[in-house]
């Protein structure tokens, strides 16, 4: 038997009009964590679907434990001990932890009824094996994202999977939760399972993987030992071009105060939040997931109204009751969840871009659709969206390009303050750099920019001022960001 548990050779998958995978290779050793990296749209998702039996490749062969196999369907792959944990969980929110773990392979009593005692017990053991004390009887929806992920992993193990694919598991996790996930992943490896780990975070790769494979534009670029490549080399492999300075921060002289938030509170979410933002300033708001960052700005925007506190724009007190009030005042918000909050996926890009600003195109109550399309085209080109026409469905774009469409949509309003909530989450390196460029450009034009972010490098790379939140309160504000270190921020964010 070869040293590999799983090998894929010369895999090609063609969809109408596109080669989604073009002669791709991959190999996985027993007890190895293998990182798979590439920009969005590089073919990683299609590749996973080939491994899990969702897609049948047009060419190439899959060798599992030394034998050539063809997966007929996902169930077939599952029976051959392959499991995948997806970015957007596949769990049932209304069911209990146990029900989720054993769905599809329930344990039965001798009378063919469901054996709950046994399942709860086994679920508990599985979870304990992962170092977690989640109650198996808890309802899924009440767990945090990190806990749900642990349940997903438990579910994978319960099917005796020994090849586990993790698709961006850390995307929605806080720093501490990531650490826990790392521990679990390493434990799985030590038990002899093999793991394919997909992530946009370099840190994940360095912490876990021994080898990394890079895809680009549906093609196989190469496989290397994690320590044989520098960061810059790896980025250029992924992007196909050199990205010299990923944080293109311009020196901007800060102007007058533009936004002041004073004592904003909402019971159960955040308390006594105050800060000031100036023209041309980029304020990064960071902290652990659940520290109340997004909630504060949803309060500012009038999405979930705060109980008390005041918001001033250029010294004038605002009375914001809904998003429209905030936008009329000149505050725009780029939501965190692009697909759920930012875009109508079924619509063309043009309609999406103009949805908040239909007044601009309305003459005598009638929308001038021509003017609307032309304006949408200009805006989309300005933010360098990769698309064919304004009629392209939003769902057909990659994450990074979807984000650009939302940027275009928000910027079309007449704004003075732009709030970006996790603007680069799940966005590939190339598009990330472009989003940073846009942010930097906004600050240079005199906008006040607020960036809510969990990613330490971009916080340090982009911010003029860093506001750290902890358990719903402002823990610390760093005004001079030149000498701030990652450790200082973490210290402010965590209970130490």
């Amino acid at each position, binding site marked *: 038997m070869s040293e590999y548990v799983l090998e894929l050779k010369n895999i090609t998958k063609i969809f109408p*009009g596109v080669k989604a995978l073009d002669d791709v290779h991959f190999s996985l050793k027993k007890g190895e964590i293998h990182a798979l990296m590439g920009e969005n749209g590089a073919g990683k998702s299609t590749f996973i679907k080939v491994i899990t039996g969702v897609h049948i490749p047009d060419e190439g062969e899959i060798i599992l434990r030394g034998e050539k196999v063809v997966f007929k369907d996902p169930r077939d792959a599952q029976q051959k001990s392959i499991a995948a944990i997806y970015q957007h969980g596949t769990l049932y929110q209304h069911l209990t932890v146990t029900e989720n773990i054993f769905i599809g392979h329930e344990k039965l009593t001798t009378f063919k009824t469901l054996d709950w005692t046994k399942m709860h017990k086994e679920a508990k053991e599985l979870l304990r094996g992962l170092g977690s004390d989640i109650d198996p009887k808890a309802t899924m929806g009440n767990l945090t994202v990190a806990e749900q992920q642990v349940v997903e992993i438990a579910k994978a193990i319960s099917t005796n999977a020994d090849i586990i694919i993790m698709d961006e598991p850390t995307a929605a996790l806080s720093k501490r939760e990531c650490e826990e996930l790392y521990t679990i992943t390493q434990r799985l490896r030590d038990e002899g399972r093999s793991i394919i780990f997909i992530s946009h975070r370099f840190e994940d790769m360095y912490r876990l993987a021994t080898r990394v494979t890079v895809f680009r534009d549906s093609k196989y670029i190469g496989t290397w030992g994690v320590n044989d490549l520098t960061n810059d080399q790896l980025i250029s492999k992924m992007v196909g071009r050199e990205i010299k300075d990923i944080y293109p921060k311009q020196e901007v002289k800060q102007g007058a105060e533009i936004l002041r938030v004073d004592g904003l509170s909402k019971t159960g979410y955040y308390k006594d939040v105050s800060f000031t933002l100036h023209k041309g300033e980029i304020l990064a708001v960071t902290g652990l997931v659940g520290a109340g960052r997004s909630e504060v700005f949803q309060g500012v925007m009038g999405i979930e109204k705060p109980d008390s506190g005041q918001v001033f724009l250029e010294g004038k007190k605002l009375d914001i009751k809904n*998003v429209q009030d905030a936008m009329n005042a000149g505050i725009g918000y780029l939501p965190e969840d692009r697909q*759920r909050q*930012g*875009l109508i996926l079924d619509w063309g890009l*043009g309609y999406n871009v103009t949805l908040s600003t239909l007044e601009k195109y309305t003459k005598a*109550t009638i929308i001038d659709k021509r003017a609307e399309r*032309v304006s949408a*085209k200009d805006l989309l080109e300005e933010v360098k969206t990769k698309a*064919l026409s304004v009629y392209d469905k939003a769902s057909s774009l990659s994450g990074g390009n979807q984000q650009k469409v939302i940027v275009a949509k928000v910027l079309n309003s007449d704004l003075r303050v732009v709030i970006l909530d996790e603007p680069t989450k799940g966005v590939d390196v190339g598009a990330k750099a472009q989003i940073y460029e846009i942010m930097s450009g906004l600050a240079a034009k005199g906008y006040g920019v607020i960036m809510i972010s969990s990613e330490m490098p971009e916080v340090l790379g982009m911010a003029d001022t860093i506001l750290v939140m902890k358990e719903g309160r402002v823990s610390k504000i760093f005004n001079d960001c030149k000498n701030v270190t990652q450790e200082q921020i973490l210290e402010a964010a965590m209970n130490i």
Partner: protein
Amino acid sequence: MAKDFERQAVSADGTRTIIANRGFSSKRFFLQWEWMLVLMLVAVNIFNISSSSNYANARGILNATRDFIDKAIVVFPMAFVLMLGEIDISVASIMALSATIMGIVFEATGNMFIAIIAALLTGVICGLINGSILAKFPELSSMIVTLSTQIIFRGIAQIILETRSIGGFPSWFGNIASGKVGLVPYGLIFVVAEAVFFAYLLHMTKFGRRTIAMGNSVTVAKYSGIKTNKIKVIIFTVVGLFSAIAGIYLSSKMSSVRSDVARGYELDIIAMVVLGGISTSGGRGRILGTSLAILVIGYLRYGLGLINATSQIIMIVVGLLLIIAVAIPNLKNSLGQIKILK
């Protein structure tokens, strides 16, 4: 297919020009649900002409519309409700309640104008109640809320009138349903005007675009600065208003008022909207399709009446038509996929 591939290749090598205008595509033009409805309408009319000799002329065809104008009046506002992804099954009860109120106000004052105003006001209040409950409690489904108000509104009408009927309206009131300009009934003129107005509202104005946006995703609409609750309340209130108008028309047609009128009308009204191609999950469809669907179901019912089909048979036929209407778009999708796979 080859053409699509070329276009993709162009964009892949980095050109970032985005097309703002697309030309006429015959495929897109002919793959519209409305053509299907035109075919159905032709088929239904051929069937009607062959079953009645009095039908095959302008007078017959125009007169037949009187049979379904009372329903047609509510169809366009209902299209907006379905566009939102909601439903309103209380419309027939609102028709009955506003007619009832009109009756007793007429009885008390002897003034038909005041009675009509009272009926319209009743409709507006009923719609406002539906809309406000739904706006205040977004977790409640409109199906359950309007099912409840359907029972309540009908109940109030029955308490007021019991089994009594009120008649003796002035003769001009009867003329609302029976009057014509040339060969065209007043009611038909009203419905055509309504179609034009609601098509304009849905397809050309901000209000329409925002309604469609809400039907696709209320969350996105909210984050885009759309006052979603306001739009919801307005639409349900307008449905109430037009239900009252339909109630008035129906009273004129029957020249009396009873509390049990218009029973089951909501089903036909919703069927017309759905057959017209407005997606039941919201956010998709056109007023043109809805207009054609009114004629298809309306004439079909009329034609089945001509050959003395029982109302049960009529219901079965309408039901089958609906299933076809909902299934065909899906069928089209899967057929399309088969082609692509080959």
